[in-house]
């Protein structure tokens, strides 16, 4: 039996398409899972912390821990002035984390494995950085591209490199998350395909199938780590980029 590892990333309509003003509006599985994510995050953050117990229960502990965790990250990498962006960074972190974690459940859909979603998130961050940087610092924001203490002779080359690396930020920011999720899920699917292939080969194959099955379990554990790590990386890079907008001098 052949398993197609790409099939899990296909977007399909949940309800028939509606034609609205020349655009096709469809409720896809991607949209469904994004709604599940938003509902899940809201349930955790609003529902679990509604009792406001002095001694928190389990769910309230999770909510408080994640709040403290992101707040510390923002404070340490973007300064106290960066705390005004805390709601934004926290929203991004929780959305990406829940998207990654929900995507690990078999037969579910990983929203962050779509480049269009991660690109939209990364472009939002990029535009906020550029917009806020110019709004707060004016043209001093361009000091970001002129590092101090560089010899005059190589300064033009350094400026070009700085501009290029600044412009390629949204690309790497979005593709990192997308590629990690895509590659992880394809690897899982390929090893799961080995299990099915071996198990279909008769009684001897059943014993052989134990090996790739153990591999799938181990890879799922690794993917759990990657899911958390990539959400953290996404959040901390957002903080560092925002820090550039707040303090543009190197």
């Amino acid at each position, binding site marked *: 039996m052949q398993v197609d590892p790409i099939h899990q990333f296909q977007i399909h309509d949940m309800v028939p398409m509606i034609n609205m003003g020349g655009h096709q509006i469809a409720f896809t599985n991607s949209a469904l899972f994004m709604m599940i994510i938003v509902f899940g995050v809201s349930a955790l953050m609003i529902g679990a912390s509604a009792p406001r117990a002095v001694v928190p229960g389990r769910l309230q502990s999770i909510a408080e821990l994640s709040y403290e965790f992101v707040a510390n*990250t923002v404070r*340490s*990498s973007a300064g106290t002035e960066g705390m005004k962006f805390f709601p934004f960074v926290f929203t991004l972190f929780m959305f990406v984390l829940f998207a990654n974690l929900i995507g690990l459940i078999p037969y579910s859909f990983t929203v962050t494995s779509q480049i269009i979603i991660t690109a939209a998130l990364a472009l939002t961050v990029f535009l906020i950085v550029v917009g806020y940087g110019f709004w707060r610092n004016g043209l001093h924001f361009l000091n970001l591209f002129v590092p101090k203490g560089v010899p005059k002779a190589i300064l033009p080359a350094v400026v070009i490199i700085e501009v290029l690396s600044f412009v*390629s930020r949204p*690309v*790497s920011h979005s*593709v*990192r998350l997308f*590629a990690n999720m895509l590659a992880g899920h394809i690897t899982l699917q390929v090893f799961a395909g080995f299990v099915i292939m071996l198990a279909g080969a008769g009684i001897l194959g059943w014993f052989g199938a134990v090996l790739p099955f153990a591999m799938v379990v181990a890879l799922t554990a690794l993917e759990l780590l990657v899911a958390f*790590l990539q959400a*953290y*990386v996404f959040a*901390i*890079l957002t903080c*560092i980029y925002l820090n550039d907008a707040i303090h543009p001098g190197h």
Partner: protein
Amino acid sequence: MDPTAAKYIGAGIACIGMGGAGVGVGIIFGSYLSAALRNPSAAQGQFGNLIFGFAITEALGIFSLLIALLLLFGL
């Protein structure tokens, strides 16, 4: 050469660049670990820098993966 074959070969060659990123990420985590074992009390404060360095290094590997993906599906 058949253009489709050239495309696949190019995608394969583009992925070699990820090896360099792998070396870089290994150096970053190795250096962090050796430094953290020398001075464990300072390790916690450098965790953010570790992740930042990791992300920046990994970005270069991701660019080569991007070229491979573009060759396979985009162009």
